């Protein structure tokens, strides 16, 4: 506290009229006032500092324990279901809450199927967009058009995608299904493929912008080396840009997959919510998120516990994918 005790000097400094800055920098006055080291000011400094660091500490702690608390209470709530049916939530084929059968396999399959299909559908588009933005049109009107429409797509709420899918994609799929009626497919329109198409549109902005960032990082001299060897643009993309950015693009796809796994509303509206393992991509099914959304409110205690357990599984799967994606990205950037 030694430096605070020199009250006279500071006061003297404050009173000096010669400072030309006095008029211009009114802000200085506040700073000088903070320098008024009377006893209560000193106290205020201490109290202020400790309140502030207390608030910061609380916030950081809150964020840090939040996930642990969530996992804990999800686990505690799903405990009755774990006790009642053990691992059958993972392997059981039948979901009949009315008769106490809680097999989650249909939903796990449905979740993985819709997300994987969505990723497959979105891959060519997101690659094309990331190449267009990262290599072909880095600036200019085309780049602006593409990137702002990507931003708009990313901003549209999932409920809107769901509504649009329900009234636009579903009839289209229905027509396709009618053509396959002889294969025993009932033309509901609501199906795994419908959900995948909607999901694909939703994740394209995400994976495309991640891939674009990676492609933009490819060093210019590497590309120029490729061109100087007489390579066409395609050759440079294939031999230089893609190999260089492959891990980053892959990590982006992993993150996009994780996002698709947890998407709820858009899927719940178009997937059909049928509690059976989908026979093929044109049959209706359900995902973990969609079954929680559609059944949680009317669930009996054990049913709710089973749904919470499904939620816990989904939570863990998404954590794994988000860690995997970030791990790949970080590992790459350390090089």
């Amino acid at each position, binding site marked *: 506290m030694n430096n605070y005790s020199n009250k006279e000097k500071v006061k003297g400094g404050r009173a000096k009229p010669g400072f030309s800055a006095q008029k211009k920098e009114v802000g200085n006055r506040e700073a000088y006032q903070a320098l008024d080291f009377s006893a209560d000011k000193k106290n205020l400094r201490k109290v202020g500092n400790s309140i502030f660091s207390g608030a910061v500490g609380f916030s950081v702690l809150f964020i840090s324990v939040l996930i642990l608390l969530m996992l804990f209470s999800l686990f505690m709530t799903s405990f009755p279901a774990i006790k009642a049916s053990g691992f059958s939530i993972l392997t059981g084929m039948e979901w009949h809450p009315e008769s106490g059968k809680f097999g989650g396999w249909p939903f796990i399959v449905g979740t993985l199927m819709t997300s994987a299909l969505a990723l497959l559908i979105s891959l060519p588009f997101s690659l094309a967009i990331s190449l267009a933005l990262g290599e*072909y049109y880095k600036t200019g009107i085309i780049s602006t058009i593409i990137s702002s*429409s990507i931003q708009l797509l990313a901003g549209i*709420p999932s409920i809107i995608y769901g509504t649009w899918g329900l009234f636009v994609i579903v009839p289209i799929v229905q027509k396709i299904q009618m053509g396959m009626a002889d294969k025993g497919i009932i033309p509901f329109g609501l199906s795994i493929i419908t959900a995948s198409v909607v999901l694909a549109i939703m994740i394209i902005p995400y994976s495309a912008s991640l891939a674009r960032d990676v492609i933009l990082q490819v060093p210019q001299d590497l590309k120029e080396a490729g061109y100087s060897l007489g*390579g066409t643009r395609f050759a440079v993309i294939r031999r230089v840009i893609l190999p260089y950015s492959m891990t980053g693009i892959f990590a982006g796809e992993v993150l996009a997959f994780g996002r698709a796994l947890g998407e709820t509303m858009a899927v719940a509206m178009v997937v059909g919510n049928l509690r059976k393992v989908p026979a093929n991509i044109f049959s209706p099914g359900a995902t973990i998120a969609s079954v929680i959304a559609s059944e949680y409110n009317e669930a009996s205690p054990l049913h709710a516990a089973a749904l919470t357990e499904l*939620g816990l599984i989904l939570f863990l799967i998404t954590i794994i994918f*988000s860690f995997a994606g970030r791990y790949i990205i970080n590992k790459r950037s350390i090089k």
Partner: protein
Amino acid sequence: MEPMYTQTKEDNPVSAIRERILRNTAKNRIVDKIFSFLVALFSIVMLIPLVAILVFIAYKGLSHIHIGLFIHDERNGGILNAIIGSLMMVLMASVIAVPISVLTGLYLSENKNSRAADVVRNIVDVLQGIPSIILGIVAYLWLVVPFKSFSAFSGSFALSIMMMPIIIKNTEESLIRVPDSLREAGYALGIPRYLVMLQVVIPAGISGITTGVLLSVSRILGETAPLLFTAFGSRDLSFNLAKPAEALPPLIYKYATSPVNEWIDTAWAASFLLVLAVLALNIITGILTKKWKINY
């Protein structure tokens, strides 16, 4: 330093590439043309769903929108209760999320190299990846079950957790760019640390913080899943945070999946309003970011 370079199978990558690239030039050129065409085609095809969604929503929404929607609650054929509910819950969520997130972002930027900050950063990443429906379950378990009633507040809590990672990241990014010389100037004047933070560092990075808040608001404005079993929905106009409340997205869900034609029409009108609000927020955020961008 050797540039990072993905090696082809051959020992000498340069000659290998050269050999492959230069072989059969005419064919390569055609392949190149085709590939450019494909990139352009797929990029443009991507615009179709965007245009389709916007046009469809605007067409359907505009033809079913009428003034009655804004002055009546659901019992009288309007959606006023959902609009008020959405605003109320978003406001409450911001009140919870903003202070905690800004302070956490500040912590991360002030301790950028510490191990603890790395851990917190990872946690924030995980938090961002949590499916929103899970947050709904958690808010239900923490705030609906103990109080034995669905409430707008529990919905706000779920939404606030969604906001946090976005605000934290934006705050950190913008505060990290505030030069140390500003902080040091503050300390040199003898200003206490908390005032340096509150009156120098945070104001200097306020544009990034505002961007984060606006982005997070535009994200949660359209969220349905966390509200399904927290705010639950109500057909009456209510300002009470302890009571169930309706919001626009769950209302769209309820109406769009209903068999009643008038309800579906209302769902379109509500969808149009929601898209308009979210896109307007996004565009405003974009403009503000550009306008306020301060380079130190």
